[in-house]
Every structure is written in C-alpha cells, then in structure tokens.
C-alpha cells in the first residue's frame, strides 16, 4: 500500500508546475498507470482527497487512464497486447516473451486548470509553451 506516497508525489509535482500559473484553480489531474505498475487505481482515487487537502489541488478530480501491457513477440515480429497478467505469452502464437514494450507506466499526463488570472486564450500547453 504505497498509493498515498505515489499520490503525494503527484501533488508535489503538480504544485511545482502551478507556480507558472498564479491563481489558477486545478480542475483535474490525469495519470497514466500501466497494468504492471503495482498500483491499485481505486486506492489512488481513495487517497486523492486526503493528499490534496489544504493544497492548491484541493477539490480537483483525479482521472486515471490504465495502460495495457504490450510485449514484443519475436516469432510474430510484432508488438502484441497481453490479455492477462497470468501468462506472458503471445496471444497469437503462444510464444513466451519477456521483452516488454509498455505496461509499467506511472506518469502524470496532464492537468487541467481554470486560469482566471490568465488573459490569453486557452489551449493545450506543453510545460508552459503554447502549442
């Protein structure tokens, strides 16, 4: 049960990034969590309220997108999505593989803010640079 410390790291990172947006209110924080990340999504959501209390993220919503495990099958020469975590075999040809390409992600994808103080038009930004 390390979800509270995971969530606390998220709060710290977002709070740090918020310095570029004084007065902004955080509406939503979006995470990408791999099926092999050893993290329980329900626990993340449960901890969110506790971890954000008294921070600029208080009242925001946590949205977790899960990322399936993808491994490379040498026989099929293709990246294949794993159907279950009970067997690391290619779902097409049954060949075992430990060449993982996706599924351990534990990332903050983005966050959404209501930037009342900002006078510029809204949009998608990448670390402060408008795209």
């Amino acid at each position, binding site marked *: *049960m*390390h979800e509270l*410390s*995971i969530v606390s*790291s*998220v709060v710290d*990172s*977002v709070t740090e*990034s918020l310095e570029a*947006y004084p007065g902004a209110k955080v*509406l939503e924080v979006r*995470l990408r969590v791999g099926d*092999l*990340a*050893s*993290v329980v999504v329900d626990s993340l959501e449960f901890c969110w309220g506790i971890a954000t209390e008294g921070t600029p993220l208080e009242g925001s919503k946590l949205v977790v997108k899960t990322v399936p495990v993808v491994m490379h099958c040498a026989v099929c020469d293709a990246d294949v999505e794993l159907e279950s*975590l*009970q*067997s*690391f*075999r290619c779902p097409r040809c049954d060949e*075992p*593989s*430990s060449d*993982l390409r996706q599924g*351990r992600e*534990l*990332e*903050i*994808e*983005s*966050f*959404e*803010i*209501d*930037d*009342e103080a*900002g006078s*510029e*038009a*809204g*949009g*998608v*930004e*990448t*670390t*402060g640079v408008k795209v």
Partner: protein
Amino acid sequence: MTRIVELRQGILKKNDELARGLRGRYGAAGVLVLNLVSSPGTGKTAFLERTLRELKASGARVAALVGDLETDNDARRLAASGAPVRQINTHGICHLDAEMIDRHLAGWEGVELGGLDYLFIENVGNLVCPSSYDLGEGIRVALLSVTEGEDKPLKYPTLFNSADAAVITKMDIAEPCGFDRELALKNINEIRPGIRIFETSAKTGSGMEEWLAYLGEERAKKES
C-alpha cells in the same frame, strides 16, 4: 478560462533520477548490487546469511543493507557473518527507495563502494510496493519459499515479472509441505519467461553452489 497543461512526467521521477545516479556509482565502483524481494517470512535473511558467509569464505568483499519497518534484529543476525551490515528502518514505509539507499551508503563507516565486490540489499518483506522503486540494483531477485504456495508468482505478477532471478527457499522442507516443484517452476516461467531459477536451502546448503556460481558470473561481467 480553462486550459490543459501537459506534463508527461514520471510520478517517481525523483526516485528514478536518484536510482540512475546510484547505478552509475555502482558501475564505476565495479560492485554488483542485488535487491532481494519477497513476502515476509520467505527466508530472505537466512538465505542472505548463508550467501554472505560463503562469499566471505571464498575471499569476496561483501556488505549488506537490510530494510525493515522496525528493529535491527536482521542486521545483527547478518553481521554474525563478519560482513559489514547496516540496518535501514523505514518506520512504517512498505518498501526501500533510492533516497534511503543513498543516505545509508553515505557515512557508512568502513565501507566504500569501491572496496566491495557485492552489495546486497534486503528489501522490506512485501511483494507489491518494492517493484515500483528502482534502487539502481544490477539484479533484482524475487524469493519464494516452498511454504507459500506454487501460485505466488501468478498472484504477484508485477513483482515476479520485474525480477532478473528467482530463488526458491526452504527446499529442505519441500516434501512435507507437499510442494509441487514442477508447478512452481512453470508458474515462475509463465510470468517471467526464461528467468534463472535457483532451488535452495539455507539450512542444508543445497543449491547454494549454483547460486554462488551465478553471482560470480554476473560479477565478472562488471569487470569486463
């Protein structure tokens, strides 16, 4: 005005950066670092006691960091091998992280990474959380005892899949426990195909020779 700020940042970025730094230091010092992970009660400490003792007897320079929520019981047990041992008490935290390792390597009297061949890190007994935290180790070892049930790897795939080697402990009591060896090996291989598996008993010493030979091979790779 609402807007979306893209961050695309690892949540454990700080740990991962520290672990990268540690990995660089281990590499420069030529020390093989192993992170031992299992449930509580698998026998990590007994296995490590025997490993330290035998490595020391063969002339290798070894040391161990041992993580527990509380007490320095394990450190005292391991220190009987004559190797330098340092206890890390996490006080409730369910895993070791790179910062704890970094902090306990600093100011460890009489121990320099450059003066070691092997550094063992005995993680907190837990099959879930330690898999998220890179300690900069060269080899992650997942341990499983014959008393735990052959399906443990299926129950904890995230940990077993992240391991570089697997050790089955307490083989001396496999028979009275009704341990299904074939099934256990099959399950480990389903989760981590091709992984090296060692069947050991810290009590009788069975399987230790193969394990120590593996350590020697991996250590030799560090020198090349």
